[in-house]
């Protein structure tokens, strides 16, 4: 019981793993391109939890984990913007966002 009430770094790591696996499941099973992008955002956020938890529990003075997390947020925002632009271009071309119907590069 005490293990569950004293929040340590393990709690955050397991939580991040759960979020990452939810994102992984969503990214592999959904058929909508936008939902796949959302699931990838979930996975990136799971990585951020890890960085910030380690920043608190391992190096509280150096703050390197928080700085890394800010860079990840920057790159994730750029990825979301470019990804949605690509989705819109695909939608203009195929008139659908269903992954199983987009087979230009499949053979």
């Amino acid at each position, binding site marked *: 019981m005490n293990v569950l*009430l*004293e*929040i*340590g*770094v*393990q709690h*955050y*790591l*397991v*939580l991040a*793993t*759960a*979020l990452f*696996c*939810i994102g*992984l*499941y*969503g990214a592999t*099973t*959904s*058929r*909508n391109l*936008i*939902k796949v*992008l*959302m*699931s990838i*955002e*979930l996975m990136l*956020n799971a990585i*951020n*939890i890890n960085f*910030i*938890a380690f920043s*608190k*529990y*391992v190096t*509280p003075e150096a*703050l390197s984990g*928080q*700085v890394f997390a*800010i*860079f990840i*947020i*920057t790159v*994730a*925002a*750029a990825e*979301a*913007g*470019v990804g*949605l*632009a*690509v*989705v*819109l*271009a695909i*939608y203009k071309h195929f008139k659908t*966002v*269903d992954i199983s119907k987009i087979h230009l590069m499949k053979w």
Partner: protein
Amino acid sequence: MTLRFADKLVFGLLFSAAFLLLISLLLFNYGEALAFYVLATTMLLSAAGMILVRDLIRSAFLLALCFLALGGLYVVLNAGFLAAAQILIYAGAVAILFVFGVMLTGRQHIPEHEFDFKFLTLIFVALGFFALLARGLWNGTWKLSAEPAQADLNTVAAIGERFFSQYLLPFEIASLILLMALIGAIVVARKEPDHERTA
């Protein structure tokens, strides 16, 4: 939906038990554990709902709720600046960007995958990955810092100092990435003018 008397009784008992549990956690000075569990439950439930809900607009707003709960977790983790950035960038900008994406692609109905062997394999892969990683992480020994973490949330000044001394080059490259993403997104998503299409 009509509830029978027995259902009301059961729900009432459950709610009062949960309320008593929350109050006792607060009284016995486990505020951090309480905040962690409430925020983590909200986050995981909204993330799972985002995957499972059919309607894309609803899943975009559940994604925003997930990001908000994550911002609360950053406050628990003494990262005030990141909590603000999370709420501004993710819950504010990225979630609304997804709402726009859903609206611009016209909320067409896409049938879900049928429940076949491949689907089952993917569920098994996700669950197995979680079990493996969670077991390893929970039983692992971590080289934690000896002194307790500082409790103040005012990390903005320290982060700013690091950005302009130790991490100056990555900071500039990040701004370059944002500029490239901005121009790239405009170029990819804009409407082609007719004279360019014929050329």
